[in-house]
């Protein structure tokens, strides 16, 4: 257990990652994008034309609009960044021919995996934390509970951890970074878009006025494809009845956890056998 915390891979990975130019470039771009969305959310919720007519603007509405815009924008942006940090981390060792050095040292496959995983996730957490001041703006307007922020952040971290694990698995099985990154983006695309399309198809075939009459959303088996959608945990957590009836966050969490664990197990197995690729 102690070796998991004092793993030399973590220090090495962070040292190398923070020396890259993108170490400061990406957070800058990320914060600029989020700042833009906060401004947009503010004007959209206060501008009478964009809000759909003149009405009295409540501070809580502005707060909630900013909060929702920021957390959904940040998960989309981080989903685009996660493959970059995870899917190339083992292939780069193969490309620069340093993997043999790791595999013939006393580092075990789980230690190598853990070091890469923690380093990739920590960088994404750094981005997530850097956006906290922007999220705090929503508190100034009110309408958002700290528990909602905690739930949204926890859910985002869980989804990102799963995507990082999937990225590392791609990195363990492919030899080239370009292939593993493409494969990881493909998986993210399937999880994000294909699940939504599948849900749309199921909903279009589902006709039940009984549920609608009770003010409930589609039943679990109709929503099932969405459980693997990275946005679903956020949708279900923040479901106030206005943006939909997505009420199975725990199922989604469990599926993402299982997906991450499976990817981790396969990745460690592949690392153990990666001497064949050298």
């Amino acid at each position, binding site marked *: 257990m102690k070796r998991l915390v004092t793993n030399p891979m973590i220090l*090495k990975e962070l040292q*190398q990652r923070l020396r890259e130019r993108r170490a400061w470039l990406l957070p800058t771009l990320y914060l600029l994008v989020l700042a833009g969305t906060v401004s947009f959310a503010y004007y959209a919720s206060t501008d009478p034309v964009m809000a759909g007519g003149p009405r009295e603007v409540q501070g809580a509405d502005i707060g909630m609009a900013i909060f929702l815009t920021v957390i959904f924008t940040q998960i989309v942006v981080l989903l685009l960044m996660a493959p970059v940090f995870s899917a190339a981390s083992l292939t780069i060792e193969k490309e620069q*021919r340093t*993997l*043999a*050095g790791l*595999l*013939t*040292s006393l*580092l075990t496959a789980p230690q190598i995996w853990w070091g890469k995983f923690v380093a990739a996730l920590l960088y994404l957490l750094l981005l997530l934390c850097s956006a906290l001041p922007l999220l705090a703006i929503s508190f100034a307007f009110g309408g958002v509970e700290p528990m909602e922020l905690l739930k949204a952040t926890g859910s985002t971290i869980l989804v990102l951890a799963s995507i990082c694990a999937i990225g590392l698995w791609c990195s363990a099985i492919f030899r080239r970074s370009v292939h593993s990154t493409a494969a990881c983006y493909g998986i993210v695309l399937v999880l994000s878009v294909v699940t939504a399309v599948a849900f749309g198809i199921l909903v279009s075939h589902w006709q039940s006025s009984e549920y609608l009459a009770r003010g409930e959303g589609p039943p679990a088996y109709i929503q099932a494809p969405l459980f693997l959608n990275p946005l679903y945990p956020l949708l279900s957590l923040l479901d106030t009845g206005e943006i939909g009836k997505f009420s199975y966050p725990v199922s989604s969490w469990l599926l993402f956890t299982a997906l991450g664990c499976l990817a981790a197990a396969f990745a460690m197995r592949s690392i153990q056998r990666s001497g064949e690729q050298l």
Partner: protein
Amino acid sequence: MIEVESIRKIFRGGRGLDAFSLRLERNELVGLVGPNGAGKSTLIKILSTLLSADSGVARVAGREVRADPRGVRASVGYLPDMVGVYQDMRIREFLEFFADAFCLKEPARSAAIERALARSGLANRTDDFVEHLSLGWKQRLLLAKTLLHDPKVLLLDEPATGLDPLARIALREQLKQLHAEGVAILISSHILTDLEDICTRIVFIADGKNVSEPPSAIDAAGVLGPAVRCEITYEGSADAVEKVVKDSPGARTLENKDGWLVIELPGEKKEASAFLQLLLAAGVFITHFETRGPDLEERYRRTFGGRSV
């Protein structure tokens, strides 16, 4: 230190190892020689735990490679054929990382790093980035990293590839020094002159199998046997020398020009001594006489000459 018994490894493409055996004792520096695709790298990768064999037994420092890979890694230093280093790390950071990867604890950790820096000649460049080193210096750093945990066995796969002559000389000297310190070394290389200079023994391999060296000369009775090469500087008639060569059964002139004679005789040093006496008896004035076995290049040609590359 290394025991390999009938090891077999077949790749999907076909090439690998086929019942290869090898024994390497402590204080030996053994050269592994063979054509491309002979199985040299496969053998070294199996011994360094990077590959697993399909069958057979491989032991390093008394530990079975398949059963105790971690124990083997603790006793082995592996240097691959291509220099793989973290370009964006400083030299000290690079060594510190691998010291931690080999679970070295203080004060042994710091001592090992200082020793590695001194051994590689990089002690005054510890804060330089690895990417600023030349290939030769990177190879020295890599060898120093390989030796951080004081391995009992060193496995080197084409370590001189791409090195300039000075870097090769430095590498040879380092390997001689390590051999003198008692490290068992198995080295694969195509640079035969280097191997000839440092190795205590050569093992031939082709198509994944052990290859035994063919006998090198035909003796008077027409039987293949060992041969000795004599290099002679003389003063006097070349015809007289040629006559002595002709009268010596199985002798073959390789060169006879301007008082410089190189011949190959069946037999060993005793036969060379008899030939020298014949020359002296024929009145040839000898100023230099030296006997040698066939050099590695010659042995390689004899062993693999018929094989296509």
